[in-house]
């Protein structure tokens, strides 16, 4: 059994496929390597994942890579249909939450003081709590100044949730784009 386990490329892809389809979290290369009793090169694994991605190219789900690893997710064109299954929309975050998140994402690691400096208003601890509870930000250290304020950064989970592999994939921040300003009022 163990001898024949890894002999067949189609079967190897099936094992990857079933693991990815049943996992509720993205699976990293290390996770996927553990599926196989015999040692597999990472390059081989990557190749198999590429093939698997191709195999699913015409299907409703696609294999994507995010910060924590690989996962299957519904293709974008079905989002509107799927949304009807859960009519109660995700509650919107306030502008304060989104701006704080943006500052942490683009300027990390930052202290609360840094956030206050940029937004021009005091940081509401409720805002920080919401982001921490969502597991989108966490404390990565302290700045070595009096008071040793906590330094916040975004998590892998944040990138996963936004379908990103790394911070580099965030929308570029324009220093100043006059034409794109959208008045809120």
């Amino acid at each position, binding site marked *: 059994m163990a001898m024949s386990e890894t002999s067949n490329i189609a079967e190897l892809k099936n094992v990857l496929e*079933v693991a*990815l*389809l*049943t*996992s*509720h979290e993205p699976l990293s290369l290390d996770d996927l390597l553990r599926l196989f009793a015999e040692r597999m090169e990472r390059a081989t694994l990557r190749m198999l994942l590429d093939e698997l991605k191709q195999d699913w190219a015409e299907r409703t*789900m696609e294999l994507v890579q995010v910060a924590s690893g690989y*996962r*299957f*997710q*519904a293709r*974008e064109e*079905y*989002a509107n249909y*799927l*949304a009807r299954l859960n009519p109660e*929309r*995700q509650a*919107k*975050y306030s*502008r*304060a939450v*989104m*701006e704080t*998140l*943006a*500052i942490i*994402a*683009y300027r990390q690691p930052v202290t609360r003081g840094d956030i206050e*400096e*940029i*937004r*021009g*208003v*005091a940081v509401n601890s409720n805002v920080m709590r919401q982001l921490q509870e969502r597991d989108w930000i966490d404390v990565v250290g302290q700045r070595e100044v009096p008071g040793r304020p906590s330094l916040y950064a975004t998590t892998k989970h944040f990138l*996963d*949730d*936004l*379908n990103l592999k790394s911070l580099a994939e*965030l*929308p570029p*921040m*324009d*220093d*100043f*784009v*006059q034409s*794109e*300003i*959208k*008045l*809120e*009022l």
Partner: protein
Amino acid sequence: MIETPLNAKIKGEDFTELPKDLYIPPDALEVYLETFEGPLDLLLYLIRKHNLDILDIPMADLTRQYMVYVEKMRAIKLELAGDYLLMSAMLIEIKSRMLLPKPTEIAEEDDPRAELVRRLMEYEAIKLVAQQLDDMPKVGDGISIASAYYQHISQVKPPEVSLDDLAEAWRNVLKRASHFKHHKVGRSELSVREHMSIILRRLKTDRLLEFTQLFDVVNDGIPKLVVCFLAILELAREGLLRITQQQAFSPIYVQIALDLNHGHE
């Protein structure tokens, strides 16, 4: 404090000559002003609204308009954060520094507005990307993740429960029962088998119960509790119950062993 000169300034302005677009119906005012995320947000709004050049801000105009808003906030007793007043002071300071005669050799960077402009631009950039982040589809809101059912995912391997754990739990039940000194010596049906059925029936609806939930220490006398305990042991012995405990001293859980469901599948 800064309030006195601030008031004087406001009162020095002619309020009847407000630009039309600054007029807000009184009822809407509160909601309207609360939508600003702070003084920088308000300043940016004014700059955009009046098409002011952010790189060459007419400080007198901007300060006057800002003060009008701040004064409106004060008038409707909107809780005015210190941040807004601090900004008023900053604007006035910049304005007054610009009125001072400039030494001719002054460098470009010494423009008293430079720091304000830097902060406004930085805040505006953040505001834009925050909007973009908000618009991006997210897992659970636009992105659906594959999660095909696989039984083992939810099946944490149940830890073994030693006899000692069970005995200890039993002693606790007795201990709690002894607090309720009901020595009802009734002719109640005490057969172990009957209790086995009662327990199974309860577990059919509740699926998973904490060990102590199976005992009604308030109403049942000790004989009945003993029978109940024996019934649990008997059910476990016959493989009808699964008794699990996550770790030492944590609650013990009782549920129906899976083989029972064979008949249904």
